[in-house]
């Protein structure tokens, strides 16, 4: 580009800025496959443990379950931890729309409530090993649909981005 870009060059540069911002935002979709697999297995174990070890196992398995989520949260926020998880970037909070946070919160709430309810329901239901069955379904769903759900969240919220935080959204 010359010292004083032409209008066409300026338009191309602005388009590039926007495309790079979108590219950076789309990096939220990247995470190692094993992370979904580990979470799927953790959910399966959490639900299946009371079927095999009794209701009293819920207390210590709950702590292990919570510890897994906290560890994941901490790893996500550090450069080295994110590298371990296969995340090459940490996207700025300002890049996410409110809709994105609402969707993530809703998905997490549904997951946590389902798991908590399943773990707390007392024994005596007529279907044997029903928690194990539910664990297979939920864990399997997370392993299979985990990466796809991130893609879905990304697609759903991509259009809601921009505004004051976005430098390239102007008159071009």
């Amino acid at each position, binding site marked *: *580009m010359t010292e004083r870009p032409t*209008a066409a060059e300026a338009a191309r540069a602005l388009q*590039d*800025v926007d495309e790079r911002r979108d590219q*950076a935002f789309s990096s939220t979709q990247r995470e190692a496959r094993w992370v979904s697999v580990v979470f799927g297995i953790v959910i399966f174990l959490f639900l299946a443990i009371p079927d095999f070890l009794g209701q009293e196992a819920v207390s210590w398995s709950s702590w292990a379950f919570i510890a897994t989520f906290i560890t994941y949260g901490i790893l996500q926020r550090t450069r080295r931890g994110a590298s371990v998880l296969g995340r090459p970037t940490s996207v700025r909070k300002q*890049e996410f729309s409110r809709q994105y946070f609402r969707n993530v919160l809703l998905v997490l709430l549904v997951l946590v409530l389902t798991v908590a309810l399943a773990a707390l329901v007392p024994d005596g239901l007529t279907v044997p090993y029903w928690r194990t069955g539910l664990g297979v379904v939920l864990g399997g769903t997370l392993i299979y649909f985990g990466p796809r759900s991130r893609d879905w969240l990304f697609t759903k919220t991509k259009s809601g981005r921009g505004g004051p935080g976005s430098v390239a959204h*102007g008159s*071009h």
Partner: protein
Amino acid sequence: MAPTELDPVLLDPTRLSIVSLLAGVEWAEFAWVRESVGASASALSKQVTTLGNHGYVEVEKGYVGKRPRTWLNLSQAGRAALESHVVALQGILETSRQAAEARQDNA
């Protein structure tokens, strides 16, 4: 720098791409930036050094296990420079649009 002044450092398309990528993130791995920009490691390293010398990009080196990693992030000065540069580019487009409208009115 005046708000509508073009930044000579960001007139280079590769440097503008790097800064635009980093504008959306808290930090990014060097390898991801290289892959996204489509530059070689040495070419990117050269541009990052230039941006670093101007205080636009900060570099952190470390290890994950035994593997060396380099992380890049945009400084406050870099973010301000990008915003200013974008405003200047938008100004060029706006001036061009007004000139075209004036020509149409005169015709």
